[in-house]
């Protein structure tokens, strides 16, 4: 097998093309790959080797960023399998989820204490865990990529909201 800069992330890291992945394996692969391709490894060699190394090091970092983040990994798998996320064009959400979104926004606006924010963060966290479990089943068992893409869009909302809760917590601590 010849690896190229445009090999997909899974080929590059020599792992199965699936959602379920072991983070320690990803981390170890990333370090071994960087140990081979990082431009500093070619400090004593000429410009050609360093230029090639720079491209590869960027490519390896790009793949690692995508693989280690479950949301990005899921979106990437959907795309590879012909079900792009296209979040801008697909704004329809399950109605139950929309109601929950509104409730969360309200709770965030009303939350005044550290305690209340923590409770909200935990609730969002467990909703996120549930979404990830569903994604793993849709991608690795059912191979239903359009349904997985829909779940990814839901997860994008959850993560954005989790981020807003974090920001509030940060602001409160300062």
């Amino acid at each position, binding site marked *: 097998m010849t*690896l190229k800069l445009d090999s997909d992330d899974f080929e590059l890291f020599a792992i199965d093309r699936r959602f379920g992945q072991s983070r320690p394996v990803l981390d*170890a692969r990333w370090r071994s790959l*960087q140990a081979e391709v990082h*431009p500093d490894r070619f400090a004593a060699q000429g410009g*050609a080797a360093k230029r090639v190394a720079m491209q590869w090091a960027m490519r390896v970092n790009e793949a690692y960023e995508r693989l280690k983040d479950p949301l990005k990994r899921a979106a990437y798998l959907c795309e590879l399998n012909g079900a792009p996320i296209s979040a801008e064009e697909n704004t329809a959400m399950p109605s139950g989820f929309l109601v929950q979104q509104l409730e969360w926004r309200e709770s965030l606006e009303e939350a005044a204490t550290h305690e209340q924010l923590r409770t909200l963060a935990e609730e969002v966290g467990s909703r996120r865990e549930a979404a990830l479990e569903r994604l793993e089943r849709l991608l690795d068992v059912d191979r239903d990529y359009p349904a997985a893409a829909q779940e990814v869009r839901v997860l994008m909302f959850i993560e954005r909201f989790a981020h807003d809760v974090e920001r509030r917590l940060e602001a409160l601590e300062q």
Partner: protein
Amino acid sequence: MTSSGASRRWNNNAMALLQISEPGGAPDPHQRRIAVGIDLGTTHSLVAAVRNGIAECLPDDSGKVILPSVVRYLAGGRREIGRSALAEAANDAANTILSAKRFMGRGLSDIEGRERLPYDFVDAPGMVQFRTADGVKSPVEVSAEILAKLRQRAEDTFADDLFGAVITVPAYFDEAQRQATKDAARLANLNVLRLISEPTAAAIAYGLENGSEGLYAIYDLGGGTFDISLLRLTRGVFEVVATGGDSALGGDDFDAALAAWALREAGLSAETPQDKRAVLVAARATKEKLSAHDHAELACPLSNGELSARVTRDRFESIVQPLVDRTMAAIGKVMRDAKARKSEVNGVVLVGGSTRVPMIQAAVGRYFGQAPLTNLNPDEVVALGAAIQANALAGNAGADEMLLLDVIPLSLGLETMGGLVERIIPRNSTIPTARAQDFTTFTDGQTAMSIHVLQGERELVADCRSLGRFELRGIPPMVAGAARIRVSFEVDADGLLSVSAREQTSNVEASISVKPSYGLSDDDIARMLTDSFSSAEQDMVERSLRESRVDAERMVLATRSALDADGDLLSATERAAIEALMAGVDGLRESTDHHAIDAAVEALAKGTEAFAAERMNRGIRRALSGRRVEDV
């Protein structure tokens, strides 16, 4: 302190693979490149180098490794640097510049508490300057004096020219501050191999000495800057996981807070430059005494009376508590960014003179639930780590004993409609990295788009630092929203950003290498060089020739060993082409035209690009097949 006390020896048992040795194909020892690590600190600076496999700080004539970061300007172009300048700091306060690092890449309005400082500031565009007896000086020029002094020390030590230097900067320095540091190095005629973060340098020296593995927090509180970095150490790979801090918080602020308190208590004020400096010097001495004693006197004569106060350690601690709290908040932020739990941290290393304050050791220990490691000299460890990295980047060390994977400390983004910032590369992304994002036009028939590059964490353009602007012109007229403009950000291994924009349907392209608006122009540098370091020109020509010859030699050797190792990847024709290019370089061995040598080397570089790519492939396959057993 002696130079041998400053040395660090590898721990051979724990990390055999980290042993520094001359690789088989390296050039002969006469061509070993001399590369140093420089810790350009707010309060003091050091230079270190790897000699015989050992990193050590280089002492001056009197055996001292520490150079106070102080420059005193005298009339007629004379100047004093270091200890002698520091001795006159209170007598000649306006002409004696301390802590120049705090002003690097900063405008006058950025400097908090400037009214308490004894300088005659000039509000120059971009960066603040100082009016001295020898004219107006920029912080870049002051820093260049210090760097030149250390370069001289190293050249005297080795009786040879330097190939280059790794200079450390606070992890939290932004692009403007980093660019200012690079400009200072250029003024000092130093070839910068890399700027690396101070906590990262400390981790290299610490990790190599102790054979450490796992997650380490480096708390670095210097004279003027604070950094907190979280690094993962794995078999010689130093991976920065997250970094944070405050580039305007350090021991100087402790002194200023204590001085302000003492003046208030005594009902006095410091009006003259002499008074302002004297009270800061006295406060610093008192702070240092309080590290070992329960109470101390703060006393100094001022022009409007005698300042005298008794300070208990409790009192001092309550005065500086808000500053310590700021560092603790930064730790919390870095732990959140890294998604790391306190219990996962294997060790906490303290760096920087200000970590001698017992209250800080206690606060850090309490936060992490473990006593911080203090078994290394907090003043020297940064320079030692920089020296180790410099040795590797000069190509002296074996190619695989260590690897540094650094991150960008602050997010990079673009201005979008409504003065908002769209983040393209988030902070703590591992470099080198490339990201692209698509934008579109806002009005019908729009043919140009302005690209404004920003750095910082805030949502509004006005709250971030502007790094540069450029325009993409010649977009074919289309209805609003139809154009697809892909903006690509690339950050190389040095952390330098370049940005390009391309309209996808028409392939119109524009790009810049970002140089912050606060950086000096090439003309500025040229002027400063002729102003103060005019003898350098002839040296530069000779030096270029020597460098070109060494580069040529190395390139041929590297190609030869690549052919030996992986020549089977080439066809006979391909191999012959490479051999011919090598002969071309070899033929210029005696030439005195460094441009000709450089051109032949570049031709060889270009001609071996495809071969390099093939070899890279083989390396990656090796990484994936050979190291499976190491996977968890």
